[in-house]
């Protein structure tokens, strides 16, 4: 089962944690046990028996004395993280035990640490840019606008933070994703708490907003040892009749897969479907297969193959009884990762979807999360993944059919060039039919949402707004 590559953040930002907590004798024993567990798991379960050519035993022998001498839980955790970093692969990391504090007998009811500002970030040329803003969020109500740069969050200056992450990411390919997540964790916090955020608009003018974090709309869900996360799903008709679908995670299949199927059913003979996977870090790999089944009618098709040490497992698609056969556009960016890449890359390989945007994160290793003796979570990749075309997604990502670079100026104008490119393509694929009320033209304000008579409240609110309004639009995610 694939899980989001959420732990990259832990690897990179370990130095920003709370004050060190000294180790008790029992904690020292548990920490050593955890170190050995992590090391042995990689030795025994890494899909490559040669562990990608690194001398794993030598790394153990080098770091074991350091873990024995560690003076705090945090220091020990950083040593384990450093050991995993030597693999230079995604989906290896440690989740601090504190991340599980919210998990109790009723984890899905605990939202105390789920406070969000509503800001979705893009990191462009080393700058954290507001890419989209959730409706009815603190950021939208405070008048935050897309295209603004996040300069400072509370006491943290963002530029040096991003520089530090860039320095730690030797390959550079994950810097943007990691930096966006690092800033996001500083924006997030406990529910009802407030955070001061300093922005710079496109002209360089500094603006400070005090944002009261709140629980974002969606369903709080847990999956195994993954910390609780809010899953949201949005489907709406654009003015040309196209169906626009966005969801933030491949989790909670009874919600996301079910609504995905409903949205495609509603689309019927509409001009096409746009699936927005920008910013989607992935989740359960099996959901990629299940959702592809709504789009592929031919049996025995695969998205790709997962190669474990002992066996390959095909990511096979089981066609649904009712399959949407119209054109499909998938929107991606550098934060599109993991299961999102499997889904987008597989459908691209099958010539079933056309991909728009920027090269994806290239963080696509199937992984698991287990709990360590000291209570920390441990995520490890147990397989490699090769897309249907034979392409390794890890390190390479999905290369869009139509490359549309992120553009701060467009964001600041409330435009979404990636969405616009997809809509232009859909127009060439088919003439608008059901639901089409206005012919698409380029530019802000000319693509709008039309109400769907068949939609029910259970599928979430239907926006009647233009998808490009400022500041509450979801753009450039």
């Amino acid at each position, binding site marked *: 089962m694939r899980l989001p590559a959420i732990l990259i953040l832990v690897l990179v930002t370990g130095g920003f944690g709370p004050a060190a907590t000294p180790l008790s004798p029992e904690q020292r024993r548990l920490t050593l046990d955890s170190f050995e567990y992590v090391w042995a798991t990689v030795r025994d379960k890494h899909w490559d028996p040669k562990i990608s050519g690194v001398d794993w035993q030598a790394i153990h022998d080098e770091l074991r004395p350091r873990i024995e001498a560690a003076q705090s839980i945090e220091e020990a955790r950083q040593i384990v993280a450093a050991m995993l970093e030597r693999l230079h692969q995604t989906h290896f990391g440690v989740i601090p035990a504190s991340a599980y504090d919210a998990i109790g007998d009723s984890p899905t009811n605990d939202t105390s640490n789920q406070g969000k500002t509503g800001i979705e970030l893009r990191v462009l040329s080393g700058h954290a840019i507001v890419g989209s803003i959730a409706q009815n969020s603190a950021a939208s109500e405070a008048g935050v606008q897309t295209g603004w740069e996040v300069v400072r969050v509370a006491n943290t200056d963002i530029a040096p933070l991003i520089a530090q992450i860039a320095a730690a990411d030797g390959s550079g390919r994950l810097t943007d994703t990691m930096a966006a997540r690092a800033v996001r964790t500083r924006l997030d916090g406990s529910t009802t708490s407030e955070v001061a955020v300093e922005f710079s608009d496109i002209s360089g003018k500094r603006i400070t907003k005090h944002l009261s974090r709140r629980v974002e709309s969606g369903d709080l869900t847990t999956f195994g040892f993954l910390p609780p996360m809010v899953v949201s799903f949005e489907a709406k008709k654009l003015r040309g009749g196209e169906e626009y679908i966005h969801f933030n995670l491949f989790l909670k299949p009874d919600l996301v897969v079910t609504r995905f199927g409903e949205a495609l059913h509603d689309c019927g003979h509409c001009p096409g479907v746009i699936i927005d996977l920008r910013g989607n870090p992935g989740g359960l790999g099996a959901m990629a297969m*299940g959702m592809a*089944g709504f789009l592929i009618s031919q049996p025995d098709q695969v998205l790709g193959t997962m190669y474990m040490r002992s*066996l390959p497992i*095909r990511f*096979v698609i089981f066609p649904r009884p*009712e399959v949407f056969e119209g054109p499909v556009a998938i929107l991606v960016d550098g934060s599109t990762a993991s299961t999102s890449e499997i889904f987008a890359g597989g459908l691209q390989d099958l010539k079933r979807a056309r991909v728009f945007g920027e090269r994806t994160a290239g963080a696509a290793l199937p992984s*698991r999360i287990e709990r360590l003796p000291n209570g920390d979570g441990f995520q490890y990749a147990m397989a490699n993944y090769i897309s249907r075309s034979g392409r390794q997604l890890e390190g390479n990502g999905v290369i869009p059919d139509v490359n549309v670079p992120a553009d701060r100026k467009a964001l600041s104008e409330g435009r979404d060039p990636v969405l616009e490119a997809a809509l232009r393509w859909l127009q060439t694929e088919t003439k608008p039919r059901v639901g089409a009320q206005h012919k698409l033209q380029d530019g802000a304000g000319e693509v709008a949402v039309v109400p769907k008579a068949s939609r029910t409240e259970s599928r979430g609110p239907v926006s009647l707004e233009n998808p490009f309004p400022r500041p509450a639009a979801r753009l450039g995610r």
Partner: protein
Amino acid sequence: MRNIICAHIIALVAVVASPAADLKTGDAVLDNYVEATGGAASYAKIHNMVMKGSMGMPAMGLKGALTIYAAEPNKISLVTDLAGVGKITEGSDGTNAWSHSAMQGPQLKKGEELADSLREALFLKETQWRTVYKSAELTGIEDLEGKAVYKVVLTPKTGAPETQYYEKATGLMIRHQSVRKTAFGEIPVDVTVGGYRKECGAVTMPHSVTQSVAGQKIEMNVDSVDCNGELPADAFQPPAEVKALINKQ
């Protein structure tokens, strides 16, 4: 690996035997455990079964409820409801076999995978194993985790051979291994069986199954077994999406 869940069924509905000594053939090992645990007559009194319990993947923190309905001659429905995953259904109505979940959608099994599922669905497989297997060969007595076991290789009429291990001292089947040909590929499955208790009057059954597949352990524990009760009318009906696929055939 939804289909692999079905591999448990053979263990969950298996009836085990009292100690067997000096057994010379696979047939003798299999027949002996049937006789020693109540005999064919006791099996014949059971026409259906409902098992309820739990299923989990402890290493990943996944757990949930498990319900199995089984009835003669070869109907079965296994439903798990895992937190964060939702319901996963595996079933057979005696003709079709399927799996279904919100996560992966409906699968109507074909070919060897269908044959495997129908074989596993055979309700009284312990007494009727000859109807689905060509042979049972005793390949030797081995040491398995400190226990002397009979190793029996069963060759089905359709599909790949399976290996079962019967404890010599007790006659209980404690492990079985097979390679399942599935839509996902050929998946080795290694199942450890235990927790034997008497149910349905006179038959001893295993109540715990640990399955190792693709490096993961899946645990199933049965808390209750009810025999010969009234089953829900739709117990073996395929989910609507599967039914639609059947109708499209």
